[in-house]
């Protein structure tokens, strides 16, 4: 018998990677977004190189949002959420574990796919490293902030759009620091570490606030 939270983590990852889960969808969506943009902009390699980090970041942001609306909704619809609430474990921790599993199944594959997609937008190796590092640090923040929106919209049948409208504005700081750190890696006077550390700080703060707020939203949504 494994611990309750290990069991929950494994269950979430299994659900995400099996049929009907959202893990593969996120990466495919990321791929499509990043591939379509060069077609729209045209073969201007310098331009692509300049806006490449931003394209990758926005693609990752949208791909993360894509699977988030099912984070709690799937469990609510089949009655699992009731049992998770009755487990006798703090709901905040349940949310943390669900978010970590969600990130491992949908966020981490985006980070892994980034080096290949970076070639599409003509990034140099050092830029690729910077984008991967910022995404690795920044995507957990997207998941934890998104969890608040997912918990707020859990009772709505088609809450996906509302979720995007609620969550996207709050992810702007993550986007700003993520993209500026990635850009700073190649433009000489700007330091890489300053925006990168701010990004890490935003990530850490949302790791604390996200689960507490999401758990409160889930509790108040129970009826």
């Amino acid at each position, binding site marked *: 018998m494994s611990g309750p939270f290990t069991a929950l983590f494994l269950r979430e990852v*299994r659900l995400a990677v099996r049929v009907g889960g959202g893990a593969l969808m996120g990466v495919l969506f990321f791929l499509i977004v990043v591939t379509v943009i060069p077609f729209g902009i045209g073969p201007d390699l310098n331009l692509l190189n300049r806006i490449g980090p931003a394209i990758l970041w926005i693609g990752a942001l949208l791909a993360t949002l894509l699977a988030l609306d099912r984070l709690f909704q799937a469990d609510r619809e089949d009655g699992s959420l009731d049992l998770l609430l009755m487990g006798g474990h703090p709901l905040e921790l349940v949310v943390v574990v669900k978010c970590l599993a969600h990130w491992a199944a949908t966020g981490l594959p985006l980070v892994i796919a980034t080096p290949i997609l970076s070639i599409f937008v003509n990034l140099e190796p050092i830029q690729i490293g910077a984008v991967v590092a910022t995404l690795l640090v920044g995507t957990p923040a997207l998941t934890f902030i998104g969890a608040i929106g997912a918990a707020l919209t859990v009772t709505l049948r088609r809450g996906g759009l509302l979720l995007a409208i609620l969550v996207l504005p709050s992810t702007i700081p993550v986007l700003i620091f993520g993209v500026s750190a990635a850009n700073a890696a190649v433009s000489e006077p700007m330091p890489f570490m300053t925006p990168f550390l701010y990004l890490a700080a935003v990530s850490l703060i949302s790791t604390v606030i996200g689960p507490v707020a999401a758990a409160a939203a889930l509790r108040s949504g129970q009826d």
Partner: protein
Amino acid sequence: MRLIGVDLLCERGGRRVFSGLGFAVSGGEALVVTGPNGAGKSSLLRVIAGLVRHDAGTITLEGGDDELPVPAQCHYAGHYDALKPSLTVMENLSFWQSFFEVPGLDPLDALDELEIGHLADLPGAYLSAGQRRRLALARLLVARRPVWLLDEPTSALDRRSEAKLTALMNAHVADGGIVMAATHTPLELVNRRELQIGRPQA
């Protein structure tokens, strides 16, 4: 052990479901909640399970574990079976055993008990309604909790499974547990008492 509800008031969507409702059920007793549709049977069970807020009144479990809140000592089997279609029957059941973290029957024994042991490796998506329900009931066996809250537990069950469920409920009661069930099926329960909920005032 004694589960006591005093002066419970529940309002949902601005409508008063019930008020001034009280009940007491001791270990070794089965309380069957009856009443017309919409009388608040499901709401009462969900209130006890901590899934619906009650606006007034108290629920206590005397002789239970004081460290745990009442819902964490209850099993709730409602209208939904909490079954994940992409996980196998075994994975579904073992997850809940690990999550509830209290000892109980081995998952395979619990499945055998409900006569779905041969389906252990099948993904949940392929189960029939009755098999899904039996899997949901197997959850009550893999983690021992003193209070069972069952909402229409016999729905989708055939005669044979219904008798099996009655036997399980009686065994739980004989073991000193508490069963609260909302059902229209006349189950042959020992130590059966009845709680009649009337039609709410509009």
